[in-house]
C-alpha cells in the first residue's frame, strides 16, 4: 500500500513545460505565459502571510508567527524570508490572495492534489487538468514535453506527449525513432512530429547532461525556454516537502526555508524570463492550508484555507485580496481551520483570462465546468 509519506517522498521537484506553439495549430492571439508552482503538502498560509492586524492571531498561535514580519498594510504582514517577493509587491508586480482554497475540505493529500489539478469539485472525477483544458480551449497546441504529464496540464487533445529518451538495447537515437513514427502518420501529423524532432535534438542535451532537479535549476531552465518567442507557454514546477507537521519553524526551520526556496524560484524565473516577464503570471497552488492553532509538537496539521502568491508583469497593481473571515474560534472552519472565503478556481480563471485571453464565462463553463465561479480578474489584473 502506498502511504502518504511514501507518496510525498516519491515525488521530488519537477519541471513540466507545455504549450509549445506549433505552426498551423496554435491560433490563440494573446501570448501570455502561465507558470504554476505546485507547493506539495499544504503550505501554512498564516505563517507565510500572517494577518498581524487580527488580534486573534497571537492568541491562537503565538509561537508560529515570524518575530519580525514585514508589514504590508494594517491587516497583513509577510514572512521576512519572502525578500524578492516583497520587492515585487513594492513594485506592483505581485499580489496575494488570502483565506483561499480549492473547493476541497477533506484534508487528504491525494484528493487535494487531484482537486487542485483537475479543477472540479469532486476528486478523481476527470482525467484532464484545468490548465490542459484551458490550453485546449485557447487552441494552444503542442502539449507536454514530459514523460509523466501532471494531471494539471493534461488536455483532451493531448496529441504530443513526448520525452526525449533512448530505448534500452537499441542504439537508435530518439530522432531515428521519431523518423519511424513519422513515416506511419499522415501529412499533418508528420509536420508536428518534424517539429518535435527538431526540438528533441535541442533537448537531448538537456536530458543527458543530468540537469539538477532542484527547483532553482528547473526555474532557470523554464525561464530560458519560455522567454523564446517559440518557447512553451506553460510551465509547472513542483516544489515538494510542504508536508512538515512538527517543528515547522518560526523564523528559521523547515517551513521558512521553503519560503526562501519559493521566493528564490520566483526571482530566478523573473531573471531568466527577461522581457517575457511582462507577459507572465506565476501562481502558487497548494492542496490545503493548516490548522490555525499549533499542535503539541510546534507544528500545524492539515487544514482548509491558505494563501496564494501571484507574481508577474501581467499584474499592474499589487494588493492583498481577501474576504477576511477572522480567527476567533467561532469564525474557523470546524473550529480549527482558517475558512476559505475565496474559491481559488476564480484566481486560476483570472490567470487564464489574463494570459490566454479567454472570456470568464467560457473559462468557468468549459475549463472548470461551473458557471457560478465569481470573476476576480478586475481585482488582480485591473
Amino acid at each position, binding site marked *: 500500500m502506498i502511504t502518504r509519506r511514501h507518496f510525498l517522498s516519491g515525488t521530488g521537484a519537477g519541471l513540466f513545460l507545455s504549450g509549445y506553439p506549433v505552426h498551423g495549430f496554435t491560433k490563440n492571439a494573446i501570448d501570455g505565459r502561465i507558470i504554476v508552482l505546485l507547493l506539495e503538502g499544504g503550505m501554512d498560509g498564516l505563517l507565510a502571510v500572517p494577518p498581524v492586524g487580527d488580534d486573534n492571531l497571537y492568541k491562537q498561535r503565538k509561537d508560529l508567527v515570524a518575530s519580525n514580519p*514585514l*508589514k*504590508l*498594510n494594517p*491587516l*497583513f504582514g509577510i514572512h521576512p524570508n519572502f525578500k524578492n517577493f*516583497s520587492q515585487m*509587491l*513594492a513594485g*506592483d508586480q505581485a499580489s496575494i490572495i488570502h483565506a483561499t482554497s480549492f473547493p476541497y475540505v477533506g484534508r487528504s493529500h491525494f484528493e487535494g492534489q487531484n482537486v487542485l489539478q483537475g479543477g472540479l469539485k469532486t476528486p478523481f472525477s476527470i482525467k484532464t487538468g484545468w490548465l490542459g483544458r484551458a490550453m485546449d480551449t485557447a487552441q494552444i497546441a503542442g502539449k507536454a514535453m514530459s514523460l509523466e504529464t501532471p494531471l494539471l496540464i493534461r488536455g483532451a487533445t493531448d496529441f504530443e506527449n513526448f520525452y526525449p529518451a533512448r530505448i534500452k538495447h537499441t542504439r537508435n537515437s530518439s530522432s531515428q525513432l521519431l523518423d519511424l513514427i513519422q513515416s506511419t502518420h499522415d501529412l499533418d501529423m508528420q509536420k508536428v512530429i518534424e517539429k518535435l524532432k527538431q526540438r528533441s535534438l535541442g533537448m537531448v542535451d538537456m536530458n543527458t547532461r543530468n540537469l539538477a532537479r532542484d527547483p532553482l535549476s528547473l526555474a532557470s531552465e523554464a525561464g530560458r525556454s519560455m522567454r523564446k518567442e517559440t518557447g512553451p507557454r506553460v510551465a509547472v514546477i513542483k516544489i515538494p516537502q510542504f508536508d512538515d507537521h512538527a517543528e515547522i519553524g518560526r523564523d528559521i526551520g523547515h517551513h521558512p526555508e521553503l519560503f526562501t526556496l519559493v521566493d528564490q524560484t520566483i526571482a530566478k524565473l523573473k531573471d531568466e524570463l527577461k522581457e517575457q516577464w511582462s507577459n507572465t503570471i506565476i501562481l502558487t497552488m497548494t492542496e490545503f492550508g493548516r490548522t490555525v492553532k499549533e499542535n503539541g509538537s510546534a507544528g500545524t496539521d492539515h487544514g482548509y484555507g491558505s494563501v496564494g502568491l501571484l507574481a508577474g508583469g501581467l499584474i499592474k497593481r*499589487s*494588493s*492583498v*485580496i*481577501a*474576504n*477576511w473571515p477572522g480567527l476567533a474560534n467561532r469564525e474557523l472552519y470546524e473550529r480549527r481551520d482558517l475558512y476559505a472565503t*475565496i474559491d481559488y478556481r476564480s484566481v486560476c480563471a483570472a490567470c487564464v483570462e489574463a494570459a490566454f485571453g479567454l472570456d470568464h464565462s467560457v473559462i468557468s463553463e468549459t475549463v472548470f465546468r461551473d458557471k457560478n465561479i*465569481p*470573476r*476576480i480578474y*478586475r*481585482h488582480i489584473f485591473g
Partner: protein
Amino acid sequence: MADYFKNSLYSFTIFFVIASSLHADSDVICIQEFLKKTVFDPGLVDGKWGRDTGVAINSLFEQAGLNKQGQEVTVDQANEICTFLKSDKYREILEIGQFKIFSIDIK
C-alpha cells in the same frame, strides 16, 4: 391601572414602529439590499443610513474608484446612488463588490 400602562406601552410601540417606518428611506433600502449581495456589509436592511451603511457604501465606491476626489457619499445622495446602482453599471459594481482589496503600503 395596569391596563392603562399596557395600552400606553402598545401606543408607544405602535407610534415607534410607524415613526421608524416613516424614517426608513426606500433609497437607503435599495442601497442596503445591493450591499448585502457584496462583501461590504451594511448591517441590518432597515432603511436607515447608519454608520455601517455609510462605511460599506464608501468602501465599495472607493474600491471601484467612484469616490470623486476622495469625497465620501452621504445620505443626501441616496437617491442618486440608488439610481446609479440600478443602471447598466449594476453587474460591474456587483462584481467589484465580491472581493476586498487591501492595498500594499511598503512602496
